[in-house]
């Protein structure tokens, strides 16, 4: 009955993400093409903001893909190309923001909060266990010990 699900499952297993790159955009040199691909995966399409230019079908994404390939072909380094785009479109064009003084909070904020939490929990329990050991009310006084043994004895 559920046999028909198997091909469906296989189809899902082997499905690759759809790519927007068109055949005429590809570079002949496969090494350069691979570099261009790796770069464009990390560049935001500013029209459809949460897609990379590698995914997006928009006109602007196509122009930027062509631009990246042109620059790669001309021998620009990855960093050169990123800088070129950032000076024109802003830091926002990178899907993976760089670590600069503007993005310290973004990168390190969560770690700082996590550390603060761990330290908080640690000191909380530490103080508690210390308090327990010295809290006089928890240690029975001599009188109390005597009364307890009396009570136990009386029951017998």
């Amino acid at each position: 009955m559920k046999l028909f699900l198997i091909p469906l499952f296989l189809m899902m297993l082997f499905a690759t993400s759809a790519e927007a790159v068109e055949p005429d955009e590809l570079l002949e040199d496969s090494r350069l093409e691979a570099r261009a691909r790796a770069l464009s995966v990390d560049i935001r399409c500013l029209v459809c903001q949460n897609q990379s230019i590698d995914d997006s079908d928009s006109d602007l994404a196509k122009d930027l893909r062509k631009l990246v390939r042109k620059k790669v072909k001309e021998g620009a380094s990855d960093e050169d190309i990123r800088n070129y785009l950032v000076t024109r479109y802003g830091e926002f064009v990178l899907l993976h923001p760089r670590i600069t003084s503007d993005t310290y909070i973004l990168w390190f904020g969560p770690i700082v909060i996590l550390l603060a939490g761990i330290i908080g929990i640690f000191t909380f329990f530490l103080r508690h266990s210390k308090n327990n050991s010295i809290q006089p009310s928890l240690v029975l006084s001599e009188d109390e010990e005597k009364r307890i043994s009396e009570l136990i004895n009386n029951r017998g």
Partner: protein
Amino acid sequence: MRQLLFLLPLSTFILLAAYFGLGLTKDPGLIPSALIGKPAPKFDLPSLMPGEKGINEHDFKGRVSIINVFASWCVPCLAEHPIWMQIHNNTSIPIYGIAWKDKRESTMRWLEKHGNPYVRIGYDPLNVFGIEWGVYGAPETYIVDKTGRIRFKHVGPIFPGLWQSQIFPLVEKIRAEK
């Protein structure tokens, strides 16, 4: 003071929630331009009109100018067009046009039909200007000051309200600078 410490996580949460909640009400389409305060990027475009002078970044020096990226296929460009006609007719602010990703004949026909408010128009069918200036859609409007620096950028159509309340006062302010 010590006893109130237990309120810290809750108050932190409320503050963060309020901050993010506020963020949700903002338009994610508004991206600050990377070029504000920087010299206008280099470019050199031929004129849309055959036989006329083209535009490059040196043309903007000496006067506060408006640069408007438009296209005949762009509906919001048509929506904002009346404001450019008005500015052209009533003020001396030069408006430069960039005919973006369009066919020459289509742009010319569009201008004939709706009027031409531009002192000069650069022809950019291949998005050369667009990439240099970080354009990501038409219409887009820039204000460049006398020294050739970009002072303002607006993405999307400009309507009379926005022009009166923000852009015109800004142009006046920049014009008054030495």
